[in-house]
């Protein structure tokens, strides 16, 4: 593929959709976490690609896109720490991380 904006958008759409498929079809809680990471990375790649290729305007700084990606990475780190703590807690409670075993969480 050529080095251009649409190629980056195609790559990040593929990342997003594979991540979404992972989230939808995995039964393993950690597998679902990996899917979420793929989705977040697709979004971050989009931000950086737009900040590189778009026409700069007077009022906005194009580096803002990279700042957003930094915040995405920070939020992803927080999310993974809490999610893995929950997974370990579930595992020590019922010796399983299969999300089908936690139907009672549906309320």
């Amino acid at each position, binding site marked *: 593929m050529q080095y251009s904006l649409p190629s980056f958008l195609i790559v990040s759409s593929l*990342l997003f959709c594979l991540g979404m498929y992972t989230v*939808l079809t995995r039964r393993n809680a950690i597998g679902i976490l990996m899917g979420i*990471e793929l989705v977040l990375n697709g979004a971050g790649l989009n931000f950086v690609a737009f*900040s590189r290729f778009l026409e700069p305007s007077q009022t906005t700084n194009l580096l803002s896109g990279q700042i957003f990606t930094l915040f995405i990475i920070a939020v992803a780190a*927080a999310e993974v720490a809490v999610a893995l703590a929950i997974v370990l807690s579930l595992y020590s409670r019922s010796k399983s991380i299969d999300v089908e075993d936690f139907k009672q969480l549906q309320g």
Partner: protein
Amino acid sequence: MKDIIFNVFILLTIIPCFWVALSSNIVHAAFSLLITLFGIAGLYVLLGADFIGVIQVIVYIGGILVLIIFGVMMTQRGKLLPLSIQLPGKLFGAVLTGVILAALLLSATRTLWPVAAVLGEPQLTSAAIGDLLLGKYLIPFEIASVLLLAALIGAVLIARRSVRGE
């Protein structure tokens, strides 16, 4: 030359991604995720975002991925479960994902983006990012640090309670 490197990084990103989604072995999926994250770091560098690329390697590969592999190792005892759901649900997921992928690809390729006519030379970004973080984006920056602190304390609390078995 640049196009060749670009395509290598795209393949490095996308191909392991299919393993993450489809592999029946969670350890293989975790290590494929490692290669994918590395490919994305390469794409960031190719986009002129050197700082983000380095942060990607440090935080994602050095931190998040190690945590995920820890999680995999600590929860692998006992019987091996099927990793994915069965066929009707899988088909539903595939159809839904396919529709969204088609819509995304159409909008990505058909839209006329206001692309800059001449791409500027990539410059070192860390100084400018530091200025923005301590200037225009100071409040989001501080909120993010409080969020990280709260998340880490919460994670310790949740995991600790489960170790003590309450």
